[in-house]
């Protein structure tokens, strides 16, 4: 269990050759690449749980009843895997082919600067064509990012990997 303390304690590991300044520098390089060079933008529709009027029993809502915070653009490094060619019925009828899952990496620093948080169930929009935006929902918000993969030389977590799966327009269709 993570113990959040009111006072901050500096991280001193790797202190002989890596510190907070180096960490920020590395982050700066990475963000320059991700946000400057790649500039792949997703839109975060973070659901306002308090204002969304849900069903009393099941806490379900229709797509037009979802209330969300102002959408925020995030510059990320993303991957969309090919979707499966599937059928709704087991006997091979009623085929559907949707987008595959989306996985994107985002710097925590960017989220902090934009004062937003990605949580389980939020919706992510990605403009697949000039006139079309596709929506995914967050199935893994990547809030735990202190593993080796998401830290800079094991110093501190820098990036978050967020996994999303597609949503039907019946569930969410943006603005």
């Amino acid at each position, binding site marked *: 269990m993570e113990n959040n303390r009111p006072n901050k304690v500096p991280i001193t590991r790797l202190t002989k050759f890596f510190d907070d300044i180096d960490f920020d520098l590395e982050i700066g390089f990475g963000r320059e690449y991700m946000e400057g060079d790649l500039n792949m933008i997703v839109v975060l529709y973070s659901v306002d749980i308090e204002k969304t009027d849900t069903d009393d029993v099941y806490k379900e809502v229709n797509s037009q009843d979802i209330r969300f915070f102002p959408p925020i653009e995030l510059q990320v490094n993303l991957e969309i895997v090919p979707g499966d060619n599937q059928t709704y019925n087991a006997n091979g009828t009623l085929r559907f082919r949707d987008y595959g899952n989306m996985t994107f990496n985002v710097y925590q620093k960017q989220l902090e600067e934009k004062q937003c948080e990605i949580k389980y169930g939020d919706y992510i929009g990605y403009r697949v064509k000039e006139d079309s935006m596709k929506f995914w929902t967050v199935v893994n918000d990547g809030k735990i990012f202190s593993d080796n993969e998401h830290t800079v030389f094991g110093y501190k977590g820098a990036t978050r990997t967020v996994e999303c799966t597609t949503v039907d327009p*019946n569930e969410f269709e943006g603005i």
Partner: protein
Amino acid sequence: MGIPKNFLKNLNLKPASRNHERRMELWQEGMDASGTFVPKGVLYEDMDRDFIKLIEEELVISVEGKEVPVFFLTMQRWAEFARTWKFTDKDRNVQMPFITIVRNPDIQFGTNPVTQYTIPQKRRFDYMKVPNYDGDTVGYDVYRIPQPIGVNLTYQVRFFCYRMREINKFNKIIMQAFQSRQKYIKCNGHYFPVVLESIGDESTIDQFEQKRFYVQNFEMQLQGYIMDEEEYEVTPAIKRVVTLFETEPNIIPSRNQTDNLNPEPELEEYNIELLWEPEIGFSSGVIGKTNSFIIDQSALLTTYTLNNARECLEISEGCASVTPVISVSIDDGATFSAVTLPFQILPGYVIEATVEPIDATLDASVTYRGYINVI
């Protein structure tokens, strides 16, 4: 003021038919459906059509003010697209909620006890006698039909949605409709039960990192029967024939008519006696000619009698020649030719005979008898 007890709120002005009256009503419905005197045939397509109608019209569900579409799905891909394209999103995927109907291709023999194996060999039964009139005759055509073949059609009705509320709503509709386990559909005038066999769940809730939705599967069995109109038989039965007779007031009765209404008229006899007189030097055993006689009536000679003359019908010992022999001349006696009885004579004929007198000293004669007729 309260409503008094036993107060009827609704009066049943047209009570439903029962027993025989209801059976006749069903029969009439069958005739109305086909527009003929025989029940309309039922095939698999008809049953599929009316099952879809049952789901679309009677078990209809609306979500957010929109009627949930129903798709009857077969194997053809383009047909599937043709049915669903109106309900797809911009990615051409069908939007939930929706209902799919898939019929199991393997149709089984029916389990409805009404139409189980009772009559072998496709025997046909008289169904109805239909009067007909072809302009000349009035008759009946007998319509014969075989016993229907009971079949069971199994349908998988699946309801797809994202919300528990929607699945509750559809499930409630199904439960209320199949409260008595079965619901009847009327297919071409025939009533078939649809039995709710089972309710299953195929939801994809366990797909944690994939698209998730609810799927509820209702397996229904339509216990129907097939009646192929090609197997109906129409055979002609009784015909009433109108026969007309043309009659005349004066009828000449035929000679052999013996009925009491037209008694045989009395015949007028006609006799001819041909005489031979003794001649000098004529001896017995010699044949002599009689006198000639000119006929003055049309008559049919049938018999003869002899007087003092021998009768030899064929040549034998004691009969040197055949006597008497009648000869007729039609050329005023120039030539004669022998004839045999019966013989028709006409006025103007000359007739004579040859006889063999028994006693050559006495007269001999042969009398031919017959009756006058008109030719």
